[in-house]
């Protein structure tokens, strides 16, 4: 996709360069101003949170009076962030591992076999990615509370699997389709058992795709607010839900303390995002669902 974009720029830039009317230049400037304005506001918004978290006192001025790191210590103890972070990582890693274990074999079957009802099953995997979490989260939370799983960590993990397993499947299907099945057939011909076929042939070939899919699941699960919020109890809150409650009860704690927690949340998310972006195109975070839907 990137290559075709370069080709366009070469082909279409040339004729438009030759005759460049004022209206065209104005239009281009307007569009870039729009992008610039959006990015400046976005960066300023994030910078405001970071500045506030280090502010000793910040009222009625452009910048705070002094810098301090004390809010990080107070946020850490006030919001019990050590417990919250442990829960967050337990939930996130459990969700990531389970969606890999359930999703990758399913994607393999979907990529390699044609069977009656395949379209219906594809729809079953597409729906949770298209319906927003708050819509199915409320009936899901009701069922989990009725079955005694509501408010527990198991419930939070189960709820988070609903969007992540289809996500892994939809990312992995095209990846598996481009692996030549003849490679597997050749391994069979040379007498490989199913286990050996899996460990020595399939797993190494699947690893890059799995890594990308699971890192994206990880980032999405850290940031998944709605489902965790609806299902979590006091001991199974993840960082983003704890942040929501802190902002919701603003006024009880110092603003800087909440901002310090927001910075910790940002740091946790961005670290994993940077790791993920080494393996995937940023647009993949958004467009995967659509690409599969398009055909």
């Amino acid at each position, binding site marked *: 996709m990137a290559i*075709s*974009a*370069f080709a*366009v720029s070469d082909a279409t*830039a040339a004729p438009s360069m030759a005759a460049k009317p004022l209206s065209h230049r104005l239009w281009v400037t307007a*569009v870039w101003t*729009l*992008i610039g304005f*959006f*990015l400046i506001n*976005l960066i300023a*918004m994030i910078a*405001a*949170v970071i500045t*506030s978290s280090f502010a000793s006192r910040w009222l*009625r001025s452009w910048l705070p009076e002094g810098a301090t790191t004390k809010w990080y210590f107070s946020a850490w103890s006030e919001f019990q962030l050590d417990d919250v972070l442990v829960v967050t990582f337990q939930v996130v890693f459990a969700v990531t591992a389970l969606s890999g274990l359930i*999703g990758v*074999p*399913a994607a*393999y*079957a979907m990529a390699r076999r*044609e*069977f*009656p009802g395949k379209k219906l099953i594809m729809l*079953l995997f597409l*729906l949770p990615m*298209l*319906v*927003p979490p*708050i*819509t*199915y989260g*409320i*009936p*899901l939370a*009701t*069922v989990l*509370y009725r079955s005694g799983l509501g408010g527990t960590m198991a419930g939070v993990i189960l*709820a988070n699997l*609903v969007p992540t397993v*289809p996500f892994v499947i939809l990312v992995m299907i095209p990846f598996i389709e481009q692996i030549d099945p003849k490679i597997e057939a050749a391994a069979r011909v040379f007498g490989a058992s199913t286990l050996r076929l899996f460990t020595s042939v399939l797993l190494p070939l699947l690893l890059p795709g799995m890594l990308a899919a699971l890192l994206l699941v990880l*980032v999405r699960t850290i*940031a*998944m*607010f709605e489902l965790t919020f609806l299902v979590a109890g006091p001991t199974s809150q993840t960082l*983003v839900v704890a942040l*929501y409650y802190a*902002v*919701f009860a*603003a006024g009880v704690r110092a603003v800087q303390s*909440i*901002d310090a927690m927001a910075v910790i*949340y940002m740091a946790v998310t*961005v670290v994993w995002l940077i790791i993920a972006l080494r393996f995937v*195109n*940023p*647009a993949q*975070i*958004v467009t995967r669902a*659509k690409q599969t839907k398009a055909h």
Partner: protein
Amino acid sequence: MSIAVDDEHISTRMRLRARGWDGVTLLILPAVALMLGLFIYPFLYGFWLSFQPKAGSLFANYARFFADPYLYETVAKTLWIAVPVTLLNLLAAIPVAFRVRLMQRQRWLTTLLVLPITLGTVLVAEGLLNYLGPQGWLNRTLMLFGIISSPVKLLHNYWGVFLSLVITGFPFTFLLTLSYVTGIDPALEQAAATLGAKAASRFRHIFLPLLVPGLAITFCLSFVQAFSVFPSAVLLGAPAGPTRVISIAAYQAAFEEYDYSLASAIAMIMGFIQLAIVGGVLALRGLFYRGPAGGGKG
């Protein structure tokens, strides 16, 4: 291995295999079971539960929803936020995507834009609480340039929610649009340019007809996200007033009144409205395709 098995067993197994059901196909079963148990079943259960009200007849929940202005007005309030935001994001995303398509290095831009999507609505809400506040940097900058004389109120009203949906929604809409725009064969545009078509005319006659199906899907996905706005409507809006969106009503019914039956009914109404709008947009897309080719409007 199967030599000892009787003929009938073999034939069943072979018949299944001939239709594509063998050991490999069975690998989908855990995922299918999970989806049936945690997605389809809760929906059906919620649907059934919505007809089991705490008091009254079968349709008491739905009757209550459409009789109580505090409840039925949430539909209009949500649409009043979601539709303008989605249209604005989509209309801004199209020209931007056409510019960015020509960029050599898109990656830094897409990385920056992915940031608000990844950080999520809660963090954006917390950031905007600071940034849009009366003493925040936005109001200060506007006052510095003399655009306004006193701080504009952008928090705890309609505009707070609106702006937060622009911050998280625009990158989402843009990245989807970009993937559709770059998916169009550049040879088509080159052919039109060779024949002397100007940029505006190339857009109208080449790109737009090809883009409409993708834009319709982008509109649906963006709209559905905006329609289910929750954290920013509570944190940045006026959750008892103009931004009491339908998800707040559903949440309050479930977790403040503990009326899961009413909450399920509201969730079903929410899902139904989303379905109706998405269905309507996709039907319009069908009409557009069958209509005259020179229509040329978005």
